[in-house]
C-alpha cells in the first residue's frame, strides 16, 4: 500500500505537471465513455483521500462529454485493509455511496497511484458489502508497477516504471494547493 506517499521525497522531480494531469483525466473520461458505450450506468467511486478528488474531476469531465450527471462517491477501505494489525488503527475516511446505489451499475474505482494492488483488493471486498455492480473497473492516475496481487488497471493516466527505492507522490490542488506528480528517492535508503 502507498504508505510511503505520505513522506515528502527530498529530491523529488515532477513527472506530471498540472496541464498533463488535466489532459490525462480528459483522455480517461473519453476512454470510459468509449468502453462503456455512453457511460449510462457508470458510478465513479474515489478511494480517499486523493482518489476522491480525481473521481470528482472525472465526473465533471464525463458530464461535459455526455451531458448527463454522473454519480460520484467515495469508498473508504481502511476497515478492509490486510495490514490493519501491523499498524495502530487509522482514522476512518468517509464512504459516500450515491443515492441509487451500485447494484447493476458499472462501478469505476478511482485512485491516485496503483502500486501493490492491495488497496484495490480491499476496495473490492468493501464493494461486496455494499452491493453487486454489473462490473467493476479501475482508473488510476499513475501505475508505478510492483504488483503483489493479480490486479490491473483499466484506465491508466501514466505508466511510470519505478524502483522500490523510489517514491511517487501525487499532489492535487484540492488537498495540497497544486497539481503535480513527484518522483523521488525514498529517504534513508
Amino acid at each position, binding site marked *: 500500500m502507498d504508505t510511503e506517499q505520505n513522506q515528502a521525497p527530498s529530491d523529488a522531480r515532477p513527472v506530471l505537471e498540472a496541464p498533463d494531469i488535466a489532459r490525462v483525466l480528459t483522455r480517461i473520461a473519453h476512454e470510459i465513455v468509449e468502453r462503456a458505450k455512453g457511460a449510462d450506468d457508470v458510478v465513479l467511486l474515489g478511494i480517499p483521500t486523493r482518489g476522491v478528488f480525481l473521481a470528482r474531476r472525472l465526473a465533471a469531465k464525463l458530464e461535459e462529454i455526455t451531458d448527463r450527471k454522473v454519480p460520484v462517491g467515495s469508498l473508504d477501505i481502511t*476497515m*478492509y485493509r490486510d495490514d*490493519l494489525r501491523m499498524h*495502530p*488503527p487509522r*482514522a*476512518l475516511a468517509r464512504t459516500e455511496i450515491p443515492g441509487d446505489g451500485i447494484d447493476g451499475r458499472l462501478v469505476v474505482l478511482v485512485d491516485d497511484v496503483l502500486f501493490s494492488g492491495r488497496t484495490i483488493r480491499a476496495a473490492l471486498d468493501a464493494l461486496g*458489502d455494499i452491493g453487486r455492480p454489473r462490473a467493476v473497473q479501475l482508473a488510476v492516475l499513475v501505475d508505478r508497477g510492483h504488483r503483489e496481487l493479480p490486479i490491473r488497471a483499466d484506465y491508466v493516466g501514466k505508466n511510470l516504471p519505478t524502483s522500490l527505492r523510489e517514491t511517487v507522490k501525487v499532489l492535487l490542488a484540492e488537498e495540497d494547493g497544486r497539481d503535480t506528480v513527484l518522483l523521488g528517492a525514498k529517504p534513508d535508503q
Partner: protein
Amino acid sequence: MQRHLISAADLSRDDAVLILDTAEEMARVADRPIKKLPTLRGRTIVNLFFEDSTRTRISFEAAEKRLSADVINFTAKGSSVSKGESLKDTAQTLEAMGVDAVVIRHGASGAPYRLATSGWIDAAVVNAGDGTHQHPTQALLDAFTMRRRLVGRDTGLGQDLSGKRVTIVGDVLHSRVARSNVDLLHTLGAEVTLVAPPTLVPVGVESWPCEVSYDLDAVLPKSDAVMMLRVQRERMNAAFFPTEREYSRRYGLDGDRMARMPEHAIVMHPGPMVRGMEITAEVADSDRCTVVEQVANGVSIRMAVLYLLLGGNEPAVSHARTTEEK
C-alpha cells in the same frame, strides 16, 4: 502502554474527538444492506456481566458482531460466580481461553481497573459500568448524541462541545453515568450543571469540574441539553427524599418545564426511564427526547471504541492520565 478504557477521565480531548469522528463513520454501516465489517475477524471478546443490563450488553454485542469479532457472553447468574468463584479466577479462566478483550460490568466500583492492572490477564479491558464509579461508553454516546444534535452530523466532525451547556438532573449520588459525563463533557469543553436534591449530591462534588444547583427551573432556560437520571432505588439504603411525588414535582421533567427550555435544547436519558417519576410520558415521547437515538448511537460508539482499541497492533487511543492520578 494503556490499552483499556476504564474511565472517561482517562481520555484526552483529541482521543475523545477521534472516537466521536470514528463513530460517525461507523454509524453509516447501519444504513448498508450488509451491516458488517471484517475488521475484528478472529478476535475474541468476552462480555463479562456481573450486574443486570439489557441495553448495554446488547449494544456491545451488536457492536462486536458488526465488526466480525467472536463474542462470548458471560453473566454471573448461572455461572461459576454464583458458586463462589472470585474475579481473579474468572479472569484467569478467560485468559487461558485466549480472549483478546473483556467488556466488564460489575457492581463494585473499581473492578474493571483491578482486572486491567492486576496482571491477571493480557486482554484489553473495556468498562461497561462499575458500581457508582464510571460508564465511559455511555458518556461517549451521550457526547456523540449532543454533537450530532447541537453541532451537526457533518459540521461536527473534528469538533468538540465547546460552550455547550449541559444540565444533569437527578440521582447524581448513585450515578456512574453522571460521573462519566462530567469528566468527558468537561474535557470536550462543555459547561456542566448538576441539579439534584442535596441528599443526592455526592460528597466532594466541589472538586468536580462542574456547577451544582438545587433549582431546576432556574437552570432550564440556560441549557442546551438536559439529561434526566433515574432514581436508583436498588442502590439506596436510606430515605433520600420524603416522597416520590415530591421528588417528581421538584426534579421531574414535564411538558411545562420542557417549554421553558430553549427551542433547540434536547432532552436526554440514559435509560431505563421511569415514566411519571423523573420524566413524564409527554416529554419522553416528544421529538426533543433523544432516548431512542442514544441507543442507536451506542452501537456506533462501541464499534469505534473496539476498533480503536483492538483494530491495530496497538491502541490508537493514548491515555493522557492514568486512572490512579485522577
